[in-house]
């Protein structure tokens, strides 16, 4: 598929005012972006700094003395890779399940002429406000025999209601002429979903998938509650426990805790970078929205 710029705004010769507007707009956005990158950069720099270099300044733009000890320490632990595998499993399978369940439900609930859609939506929204708390949920997980399985970190969060509502709204906003013409051509409602709606909803599905994926990736508390074996720990829990400071941790060779903050930042980077690598993938599909004119009725 060749990328054709369809944006009609490009065809008009731009006035000076329009260009000034663009200039200021871009400057503001870039400044904003820089403030957003800074903490990430700071963390990254500290993770590669020696303790000395970290302590010598409060603004970290570049390591004055490099150190890879934090990363070396983490990588030398064989359990790291197991926990990576667990996290990838939870994130990939979890997100696929999230997406399937959420998209199906959101599509049905977006049908304003389907009986019961309002009541059902209300019942979903109700759970955003009211919950039974941690104990009954624990009992459910236990009774379903999900304890100490990776599924305990997937199934209890199969839907996040706010994402369901956002997804449903994206479906609302799609131009319905497409659907109607497809229906006239003899497509069923389900057929419309798969043939028409899903292809043009890629940006919104990808957005929701990203949110779900990040949530799964960052989850550690359900692992504390439900997972017993170290071999089933997700990455976040593994990294947190590596940094967990107690009496026993000081019994290891003292050098580990001499690394101090840089070591902690290295752990944080190791948790962030894999999920950030998803971004280009996300961007690729995000851009292929309806704007590409790929599906025109």
């Amino acid at each position, binding site marked *: 598929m060749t990328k054709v710029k369809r944006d009609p705004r490009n065809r008009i010769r731009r006035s000076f005012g329009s260009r000034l507007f663009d200039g200021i707009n871009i400057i503001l956005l870039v400044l904003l972006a820089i403030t957003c990158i800074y903490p990430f950069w700071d963390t990254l720099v500290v993770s590669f700094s020696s303790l000395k270099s970290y302590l010598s300044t409060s603004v970290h733009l570049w390591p004055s003395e490099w150190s890879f000890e934090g990363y070396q320490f983490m990588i030398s632990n064989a359990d790291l890779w197991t926990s990576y595998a667990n996290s990838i499993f939870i994130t990939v399978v979890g997100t696929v399940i999230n997406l399937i369940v959420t998209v199906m439900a959101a599509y049905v609930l977006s049908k304003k002429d389907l009986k019961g859609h309002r009541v059902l939506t209300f019942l979903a929204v109700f759970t955003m406000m009211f919950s039974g708390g941690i104990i009954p949920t624990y009992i459910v997980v236990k009774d379903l025999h999900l304890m100490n399985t990776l599924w305990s970190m997937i199934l209890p969060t199969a839907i996040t209601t706010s994402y369901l509502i956002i997804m449903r709204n994206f479906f609302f906003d799609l131009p319905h002429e497409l659907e109607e013409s497809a229906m006239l051509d003899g497509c069923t409602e389900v057929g419309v979903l798969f043939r028409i709606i899903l292809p043009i909803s890629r940006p919104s599905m990808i957005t929701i998938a990203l949110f779900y994926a990040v949530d799964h990736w960052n989850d550690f508390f359900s692992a*504390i509650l439900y997972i017993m*074996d170290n071999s089933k720990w997700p990455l976040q829990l593994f990294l947190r426990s590596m940094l967990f400071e107690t009496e*026993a941790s000081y019994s290891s060779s003292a050098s580990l805790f001499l690394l101090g903050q840089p070591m902690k930042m290295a752990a944080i980077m190791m948790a962030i970078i894999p999920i950030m690598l998803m971004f280009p993938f996300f961007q690729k599909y995000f851009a292929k929205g309806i704007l590409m004119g790929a599906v025109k009725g």
Partner: protein
Amino acid sequence: MKGTKKIIALLLAAATAFSAAACSGGGQTASGGAASGGASQEGNSDPVPIKWLTTGDAAAEPIESGDRIITEINSRLGINLEVQIVPEGNVEKVNVAMASGDYPDVVTGAYGTSATQGWIDNGMVVELNQFFDANPDMKAWIENDYPWSGTDGKYYGVPFIVQYNSANNLIIMRQDWLDNVGLSYPKTLDEMRAVLEAFTNEDPDGNGQNDTVGYTAEKPSNTGGTGFDWVFFAYGREYSDYALDENGNVIPWFEYDGFVPAMTYIKDLWDSGLVDKELMLNDATKKEEKFYQGRVGAIPAVLYRHVSRQENSLHELFPDASMVYDLPPTGEDGSFGLNKQGKNGMFTCITAACQNQAKAAEFINFMVSDEGNELLRLGLEGIHYTKDGDTITYNEEERAKDAFSPDGWAHALAWGSFYWPLESGYMPDTEPNKERALETVEMATEAQVPNLVKQKTPLEIENGSSLEDIFIQYFSDMLQGKIEIEAGAKELSEKWRSQGGEEMLKEVQAAYEAQGAAE
């Protein structure tokens, strides 16, 4: 579309395969090779499964299956031990599991909290007195160290109070700064003020800039204290938890005579700029960093096993710096103090759901016995260590195969529930700086101030933290000049008493009198 579907199908397939693998490969609970060990020894009875849920010490080495220490315990006691150490020592997991009816046989939670109190009140854990005859070590542990921990002579758990008989905090200072300003480690509050003033105003690091300050600490908190507790102790605060009025009645500690003068002293330090203005933003790490960065000359700091860590960190930026510690400064009548005696810790119980409670008691007894202690510290003779007279040689290679911490430190099972190096007075000879570490403990313990009442009463458990919170709020407001000290102290008393303090005091008074009668 077809492409996407294929990808999803593939992912699902991969996921299923992976999960199957993960499940079969998993199951590495710390149950050890119990079946073989137990059977070969006795053969006459099946080992009793004992499941122990504990916060333990999550940073200890992970216990792999087939751990020889667990196997040894199993064969000695005829049990099949399954230990679950909660990640991050997260006590919420223990509380939730218990509250959800997911009972282990033996459980270790946090002493002096609503959760463990609830276990007792609701009959979820059994009385231990019935097992005392068969298990003398457990009996001795409770009756010698924690006789106050029961109600009406009934004990429901084995407490392990942190910082009960020893402490490890001292105020550390920059010796090189003291030398530069021609002073020595302060012995009195007046000297302390002079030192902090010199650290702030006399350019102790000689860099020609006014960029240093005398003192900083962690932000005041319910759990961590005010950061200026040494001042209150120097002004004659006798106990860590409460105080006595002239009639011998229990009153909140801040109603003691020295409170207003002590507050005035602290406020003077604050107003004169001798204290880090951003003290309120400090956590433990930030506090230490400011010391390492040469921005502040004195901090209260954890020592003992951290002596080397503190010193080496300081040397990162200042290789020639030196660190000094000593007893905290004294007040006019010679009183001093820095550390409070602990009232919190661990609490190990046998659940009512436990099938073989006698065996569970036997297991706890083993854990607190000398025999158990030796096994968990040293391991098996001939395998984990060799003994030549009094000299013990560790075999680190063998120890690393089981869950021993390196450099002669104990097995993972030991840490936490019944055992910390400080409280258990244990430090292997391998530790660098051993002499100085022990010296700091001696000093810190000398600067530890006892509690008036050893236990936490039920209302103290219920309301203690919200009352402490009121104090912290008033303390900060007085310090920052939002409220004048005398008026603040008066208002604090009224508020504290009206918000549940009054009833709590009555209960504490009763406990105090009972304690007196018992002694």
